């Protein structure tokens, strides 16, 4: 039957359509770059570091989200809360030392998302609904444990995450390591390839003998671990933490994943693409700040970019 794209461009072959979409994408990218570099003060050390910071904090969550999206589970609304929770764990356990606290925070993130991944993998539960439930559980539990108060470092030591090595902020280093590990897992391990196959066609993956539930759980565990890294970095930066710390990070992360070109249906995408997406989102954020726009404006612009990407994707796929 007829569909929108046959009405807009009847009779065009798929390849033509994909090419047109690619041209629009590149055009948009060039326009964005022009707009960014015409901003006064963009080419300066402070704005470069601001950009790097924004990329790192969103980026770790976005790399984690990539695994959830790739396996065909769309997105998780609970990664922001996982990030916050991990931050609280980190701050509260600093008495044990920085490295044990870091490890505990990562473990916390892994366990929280592993549980969700298990429910989604074995019970084939709807991933969005599971993440909403997890979000509510996390927020509720944190409220009880902290009585709604901010958590401050239980011992000094977290400052180490604010230092620079050879002029590069530690947080950026962490992010680049995250990207490298993420892409390594995706391209060079059996689990990575299996995740792409499950995202592409879960029933075919099952018939091919993959242990799909286990692999989905691992994808969620990676998402949790990477989000927790972001939580540690953020709490070190602000010197305190509460459940608001990661609010909105899941939205920015899924935005970055989609802008990067990872398919929301799963089965196609990469961590490198997410790196590109996160750079675009963070660049917009920094430029808007430099140009003196409000937070609300940032939401609006980010929303418009994500919407444009979704429309382009739909047209490219011929719907």
């Amino acid at each position: 039957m007829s569909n929108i794209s046959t009405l807009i461009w009847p009779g065009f072959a798929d390849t033509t359509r994909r090419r047109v979409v690619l041209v629009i994408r590149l055009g948009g990218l060039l326009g964005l770059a022009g707009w960014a570099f015409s901003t006064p003060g963009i080419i300066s050390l402070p704005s470069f570091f601001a950009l790097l910071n924004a990329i790192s904090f969103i980026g770790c969550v976005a790399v984690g989200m990539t695994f959830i999206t790739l396996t065909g589970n769309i997105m998780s609304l609970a990664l922001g809360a996982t990030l916050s929770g991990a931050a609280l764990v980190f701050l509260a356990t600093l008495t044990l030392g920085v490295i044990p606290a870091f490890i505990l925070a990562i473990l916390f993130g892994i366990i929280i998302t592993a549980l969700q991944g298990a429910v989604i993998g074995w019970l084939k539960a709807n991933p969005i609904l599971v993440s909403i439930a997890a979000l509510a559980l996390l927020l509720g539990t944190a409220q009880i444990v902290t009585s709604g108060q901010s958590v401050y470092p239980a011992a000094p030591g977290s400052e180490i995450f604010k230092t620079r090595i050879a002029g590069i902020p530690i947080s950026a280093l962490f992010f680049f390591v995250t990207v490298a590990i993420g892409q390594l897992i995706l391209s060079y391990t059996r689990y990575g390839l299996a995740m792409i196959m499950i995202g592409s066609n879960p029933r075919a993956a099952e018939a091919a003998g993959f242990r799909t539930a286990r692999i989905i759980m691992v994808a969620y565990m990676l998402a949790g671990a990477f989000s927790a890294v972001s939580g540690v970095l953020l709490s070190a930066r602000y010197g305190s933490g509460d459940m608001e710390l990661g609010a909105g990070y899941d939205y920015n992360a899924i935005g970055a994943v989609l802008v990067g070109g990872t398919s929301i249906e799963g089965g196609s995408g990469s961590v490198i693409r997410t790196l590109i997406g996160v750079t675009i989102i963070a660049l917009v954020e920094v430029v808007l700040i430099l140009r003196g726009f409000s937070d609300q404006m940032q939401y609006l612009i980010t929303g418009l970019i994500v919407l444009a990407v979704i429309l382009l994707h739909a047209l490219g796929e011929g719907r």
Partner: protein
Amino acid sequence: MDHAKSFEDRPVADSDGPILAVENLTKRFHAIEVLRDVSLSIGRREIRAICGENGAGKSTLVKILTGVHRIDEGKVILDGQVCDIRHPQQAQELGIALVSQELSLAPNLSVLDNIWLGNREVPFFHRRQALRDKAQRALEQVGLRDLSLDTPVEQLSIGRRQLVELARMLTRNARIFILDEPTATLSDVEIERIFAALRSLRAEGKSVIYITHRLGEVFEVCDTVSVLRNGALVGTRSTREIDRSELMAMMLGRTIGEMYPQWQEGAGTPMLVAKGLRVPGVVHGFDVAAPRGAVTCIAGQVGSGANDVLRALAGLVAGADGRLSVEGVPLSLRSVPAARKAKVQFISEDRAGEGIFLHLDVNKNLVATQLDHHTRFGFLDRRGLRATARKLAAAVGIDPTRLRSRADELSGGNQQKLAFGRSIRPSEVGVLLMNEPTRGVDVGARAEIYRLIRAFCDQGCAVLLASSDIEEVLGMADFIITMYRGRQVGHYGRAEANLHQVLGDITHPVAAA
């Protein structure tokens, strides 16, 4: 709409000219000509088969006639008038109706609602009885006299749904019915009903364009046949003038000696043995033994449970129950990884849904089941995987230049070879389970698939096929198990089996008691 109606009212016998003709039709996608200078005309009261291998241009022709694609050169003439079909709605208004493989019925609505759904002639305040009467007449025309208008469509078999779809087109004053492989998923009994409906449509003065891969159907129900090859028309013949092998030669541009390979019979000891296999509601106690070096076919109609037997053996059915052993070693029925480990490979009949990864490239598809052999400490040996993919592609005859193409760009035949390629492991003896091995596969590729299955067998593997295509069963099997409603009816060696017996078994289970 009025335009279409005026034709409907005109007595058919008055006009003897063709109802539909295309002249010098050319269609290009970029530089590639998918249809080249095609001319054909279809008369009133004619059932015209269109045959050709995958990629011959059949679907493009259908899409042009139904307004999905526009023509680049040439013209379409309907009732002697040149017309430009711009979109699918317009095609419908002109009386051209497509019954595609993917039916467009709403499953939880009743037959009546489905027949009138979306029909612009239904006024907001309508007389229900008049609509019921008209729907009933349409159902009778397609041979569904006994069907209640209030039955929800989801309770109907796929064959009956197709008939309802035909009835729906009738109420919309369709004059030309295009059926795109209507029988691909049907059992023989249902196919017979579709044929009866088509004959009755012809008697009513309608014309039918019938696209099929099954050559037997061409001679059974069609008056004439047009053959396309590589986008060009090879010719149009009356089905009384030519025979099967001539038709095949027209399609392939060469003669193929035999569709089915010849082989030495020599069944070995049983390799896979299942006893008392049950799938709740579908299979009720089924025994099967697949000897090594032989093809065992489970013949049954759609819904007989034959496909479910193999799915259960592959570990894909959660509620399956029974005793299974491979080479004497007991095996759990509910785990695909366990089945794989026991070297049991399964190829699904539902290629798009369960068989292959349509959006991934040929490379990844081929190695999907081979990852275990190319992993060290969780890391992939990417070079080894590429080499394996090349080897497998060569083994099943997939062009190596297509290794990086997406699987959905391949023809049905090539996709099936892909599914096949991933399941073989050269130099390893195992069990191959295959549901409907040649569904949606064209004649040329079909013979290749059969050869591949036989070659697999000659390695000493046991092959179990489930098929609703009796010709295929008789052509390929060393042993035939007939199945009806979840139970075994008969068991035959190659020499004892005949068409009559097998057909009788899967439709009238006399021997079941």
